């Protein structure tokens, strides 16, 4: 167990390192000096920045320096959107809003998705099952921005229940649509996966035993099958967290939410490279660590899984 955890942690660190290196070399590939805007700043600023990031030194030396800065939490400063504002500070200020919306979205997606998956499996082949399958197949075919803009178009504005601008109110209402839009795809995905693993679980021997004991179907589904059907669903949680994070870019853009996602999109539009790089490293590390936690949790929850074998 300890050996497995160690191996996974090392692997995760290696991945983060790989992404940071990739970021460095991509930054080198940008024509001109990525730290400077087109408007020529005073020579002293250029010199300072060059000295800070060692742009006058050789590439390997720069690489060491960059990594060193990274380890110390220095992700550089914004060059366009908020001039000379440290990227690390931007992230700590912006991320909580995004994380909050993401967490609510993922939570409702899991709860509703698992529930719908169970219903679908329970009524297999009936009208309810068909309807749910149509909805979930549609859901995984609709890009996030389509769902978000449709919700905005239909339910926001004057005389409609929800505000157009996230910042225009402080009521809980402003969270409803962004979370709904963001969780829709994961919900449909999880519903589909739950249905499959539920059907799988319902075909097992211990279900027959439970039936033979005379338990009613509802109890069998909710107590005996769900426990085992839920475990595979956990594996999909990792990728869904990553999806929710990137989906957040779109949702925050549509609903004008002052989160990290919208800031990231603005940085892309403005070609604010330090912000793009720093945010990518941060978000990638976040996803990798979440994946790691989910994976370890998965192995802990299901003791039957052999930890020495790669699944």
């Amino acid at each position: 167990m300890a050996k497995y955890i160690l191996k996974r942690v090392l692997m995760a660190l290696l991945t983060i390192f790989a992404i940071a290196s990739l970021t460095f070399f991509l930054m080198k590939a940008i024509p001109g000096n990525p730290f400077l805007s087109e408007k020529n700043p005073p020579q002293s600023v250029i010199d300072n920045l060059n000295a800070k990031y060692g742009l006058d030194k050789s590439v390997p030396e720069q690489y060491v320096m960059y990594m060193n800065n990274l380890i110390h939490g220095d992700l550089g400063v914004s060059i366009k959107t908020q001039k000379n504002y440290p990227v690390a500070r931007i992230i700590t200020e912006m991320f909580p809003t995004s994380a909050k919306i993401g967490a609510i979205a993922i939570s409702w997606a899991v709860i509703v998705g698992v529930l719908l998956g169970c219903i679908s499996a329970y009524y297999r082949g009936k009208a309810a099952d068909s309807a749910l399958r149509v909805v979930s197949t549609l859901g995984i075919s609709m890009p996030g921005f389509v769902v978000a803009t449709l919700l905005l178009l239909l339910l926001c504005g004057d005389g409609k229940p929800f505000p157009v601008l996230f910042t225009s109110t402080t009521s809980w209402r402003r969270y409803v649509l962004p979370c709904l839009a963001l969780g829709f795809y994961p919900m449909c995905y999880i519903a589909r996966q739950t249905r499959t693993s539920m059907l799988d679980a319902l075909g097992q021997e211990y279900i027959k035993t439970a039936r033979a004991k005379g338990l009613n179907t509802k109890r069998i589904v909710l107590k005996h099958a769900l426990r085992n059907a839920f475990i595979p669903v956990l594996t999909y949680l990792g990728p869904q967290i990553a999806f929710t994070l990137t989906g957040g870019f779109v949702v925050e853009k549509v609903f004008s939410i002052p989160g990290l996602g919208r800031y990231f999109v603005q940085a892309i539009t403005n070609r604010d490279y330090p912000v793009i790089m720093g945010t990518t490293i941060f978000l990638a590390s976040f996803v990798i660590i979440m994946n790691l936690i989910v994976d370890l949790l998965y192995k802990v929850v299901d003791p039957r899984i052999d930890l020495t074998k790669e699944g």
Partner: protein
Amino acid sequence: MAEEKRVRPRKPFSLHLNEEAFDFGILSGESFAPANQAEKEGFIPDRAPTSYWKDAWRRFRKNTVAMVALTLLVLIILFAFVGPMIVPYRYDQFNKGAENLHPWHYSLEDLQLVDQRLDEAREKAEQSKMTPEEALAEARAKAEAEGRKLSLMEEVNIKNQAKQASVGDGEEQITEESVIKELGLKTQPFGYSRAELERKAAGEKVFPHVFGTDGFGRDNMVRTMIGARVSLLVGVCAAILVLIIGALYGSISGYCGGTVDAVMQRIVEVIQSVPEVLVILLISVVLKERFNETLANSTGVIGTLFHTVGTNVIAMFIAFGALYWVTMSRIIRGQILQLKQQEYVTAARALGARGGRIIKKHLLPNCVGQIVTTTFLQIPSAIFLESFLSYLGVGVDTPMTSLGSMCTDALGGMTSYPERLLFPAALLSVMILCLNLVGDGLRDALDPKLKK
């Protein structure tokens, strides 16, 4: 299975289930003579053997959902590739005077009626209105008749009131919309501008703007067609790229085994745990800038290619190809590892088959289903990603368009022109849905073992 469907050969080996058949004393020497021509022909099955693809197609045809999706997909492909040849507008053509058209119009007679009403209303307003000087003169005359003089303050007030009245009529403003509402005019499908309606009335043939036009007067239907075409092409090319990289990597890894496999699989694991969308976003942003810089003045083959396709799209391909091949390589590696061990491979080898024959006749047919299905299912995920990138402004360059960038462009005037968002968004969703359903159908048809 194809073999089971074949009709068993009857003649030479048909067992006569009567007693004499087992009585070997009755068998004459003739029974052991070589088969004659007629008997040999009897060996040939009555029906031609079904090929793997024919069999798969037969299974696919039975799948109603997949067939409906396939039909829709064919229609979308026709819309995207043949459509632009039929519509006489180009995707980057500014139609002057036809800006901001809705996908509906009022007939020319109705419009003339509206104009007439507006003119009447304007005239009436003109008549009832007075210039500030006139109003002042009238007020003065009134005051004099009453035997008093207007103070300076009163004069200024009267002038101001008259001025305001002539600038705007306040709540009684008569607009085109209010007249249309008042007359209860009915809209007709498709967008035409006024000038186009007049040309049409003059007997000219004018192609309607079926989906309306955008703020530059560009025909939205042609743009949707071109956008769908770009999305489909991006999806197919990305899938092929993934197939090539994944197949090469996976087969090398699976074939070599041992240390090579172990190292290659660690690399795969690292790439797999990377959040792809994020890195693809990063790579395409940076690569695009790089390409723009280095290829700005190049005239070689690569330069021309980049200019025609667009640096953004190529950057997107590279980023996509660099990360999405992982799934494909894992599947192919798994297949090859598994198939190498199969008994029928050993049996074929024991019967003297060579490696090439084993691969061609036994290994490939057994994993081609999975390869085709996985490749096909890459198309919707590539389109999904492309639309996401285009929506964020990293996708295709203007004036070229894609469904994702059309949706972003529509965000600005969403409340007045919701159709600008709805058409591309609906087409995109239907396209991805159909591709997913056809992909699922393909999997069931090509790999019946996997079907649950």
